[in-house]
């Protein structure tokens, strides 16, 4: 029986248009055999949470480079909780000051990937995470 593909939503919340990272990750995860849905730019927390439900994803990757992560991430986590999506793994990639990382993890973000992370490290993390759930 073929293994069920891991489903990933790559989302760009906030107003910034820097989508290089989001696109590279989307493609790398697809090349690693995952089903990837890319939301496109400027998604509100509500749009991202709804898309996650609708697409029934295992993983959400948020790409944020604007500095708005402390506002956006907790909102998304709250909405996911309200929609009964507590089992989804939420990752953040982008420019995140180290001082902000503990609070983001506290809010339920599984991992934060900073600039310079190899795509393989992200693939490995997702595979190990989803293997246990």
């Amino acid at each position, binding site marked *: 029986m073929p293994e069920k593909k891991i489903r990933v939503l790559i989302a760009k919340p*906030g107003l910034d248009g*820097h989508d*290089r990272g989001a696109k590279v990750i989307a493609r790398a995860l697809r090349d690693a055999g995952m089903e990837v849905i890319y939301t496109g730019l400027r998604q509100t927390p509500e749009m991202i949470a709804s898309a996650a439900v609708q697409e029934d994803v295992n993983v959400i990757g948020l790409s944020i480079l604007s500095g708005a992560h402390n*506002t956006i991430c907790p909102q998304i986590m709250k909405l996911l909780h309200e929609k009964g999506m507590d089992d989804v793994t939420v990752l953040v990639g982008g420019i995140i000051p180290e001082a902000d990382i503990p609070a983001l993890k506290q809010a339920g973000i599984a991992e934060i990937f900073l600039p310079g992370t190899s795509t393989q490290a992200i693939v490995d993390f997702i595979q190990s995470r989803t293997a246990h759930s």
Partner: protein
Amino acid sequence: MSDQTKTKKSAAAVGPQVNPRQPSPEEKSWQANTLAPALAKSPERQAAFTTISGHPIRRLYTEADLAGWDPKTQLAHPGEPPYTRGIHATMHRGRLWTMRQFAGFGTAEDTNERFRYLLTHGQTGLSTAFDLPTLMGYDSDHPLSEGEVGKCGVAISSLADMEVLFDRIPLCDVTTSMTINSPAPVIWAMYLAVAEKQGADWKLISGTLQNDILKEYIAQKEYIYPPEPSMRLVVDTFEFAVKHTPKFNPISISGYHIREAGSTAIQELAFTLRDGMEYVEWALRRGMQIDDFAPQLSFFFNAHSDFFEEIAKYRAARRIWQRAMVERYAAKNPRTWALRFHTQTAGCSLTAQQPFNNVVRTALQALSAVLGGTQSLHTTSLDEAWALPTEFAATIALRTQQIIAHETGVTNTVDPLGGSYFVEALTNEVEAGAWDYVHKIDAMGGMVAAIERSYPQREIAEASYRYQQALDKKEKIMVGVNDFVSAEKPLEILQIDETVAHRQADRLRKLRADRSQAAVDRTLLALRKAAGTYTKAGQPSGSSNGQLSHENLMPHIYEAVKAYATLGEICDAMRTVFGTYEETAVT
């Protein structure tokens, strides 16, 4: 088109493909007697050597790589076409480049203080970074602005903010660059209004508006309206600038963001120059004369890490633009032919890891821009991968330029690399590669058409993915990232807190209470009417049927700004007529 055939032929003539390398007898003898034994004894480190863009580089460049190259027409002398050696006869011996550090954060008060700090430390021009709400045409108190106010730049929602931003900075004495695109006409109108209040003569003020919407669709993605009305606004600013502000560049046609999005050097060059040609063509269709407006067009390139490839790119840029102006648009004015450009060192090349190494990267990149003949330069700060620069980091970045200018001696002579076999051959190859792209985009019907079919977007995404794969496989090395990794202490960075958003919201509330609402309503209605064709009921009949009027919107925007209509209100007025743009995302 005859001019296209002509360009195609001359571009092909300089490419390496059509001139197979014919080594001289001496070079052949070197290959047999010196090179072969050396390789037999110790092979080279890699099978193939490429630039950071993946462009192949030979072991050795000799006169065989310049066969058919004519220094009289392809190199010439500085200040003369095709400007390969620079647009001025004396280049940096006569006048150094403008040291222009991009700055902006928090409220207008915060940025005004940083501006005045930089000016007292020897910076020679200002460059304004706006926050994301401003770049997207939203006021600081708009729901979508939450969490973003003052983070990536300064928050400017009305003329009141702009007055604070340039408080105690005489606009008649400084040159100001403003990185703003979709809302550029509005921000420019605010700047002009401040100049008027200061009593500065519009004919004498100088600076640059980025105003390059095409690269927004291609790379940076901060667009509001669809391409057609956006291009109309750009041409409106050209007309206004020619008439009222002859020393102000109404556009900075930008490759910087294209490169940051992951393009190669050749793609950066080609898409930027083809964007430039697109603006020229839209202005010509408006009825403007090439030599009236083109001298006010300026360019903006990235300085990435591959030293010689970057230098070749700047040299090729001048040559391509000169040829395009002459052959495609029959320009007669040498000021139209000469490509002037600003450079910013590559933010995307800087690492979060071991951030002090970034000072070294930036210095080398800046050196390539100087050797490539830049007119102005921003050196990126060492904390770029983390946040907006602290004052400490911003100062080192500025000092880096001063060291290049005053200590290295590279400014003592014009185009010191001119005539190098390698640099000239690479300049030819980069030029030929860029012309290939230009011809492809011509065949698609121009840049707007190419953007609509996601062509440049796809090419950039491909290149960026290839580079990431090369990093992952360690075919390319980033020191401190995929090799030479070491433990380090976290850096002190600039934090922008949410009090900025609250201060902005308070200011907007006060502004809306104090201004004349009747004047705001009147000027916004006049703007909407001028923007679209209106039915008798006063409803826009809109952009969907393509019946937009051709009235220049700048005077209307200026009136609305002076009535203290906010940025969001003015952009909304145009949104109701033009609609908004949604891209087809390419992954």
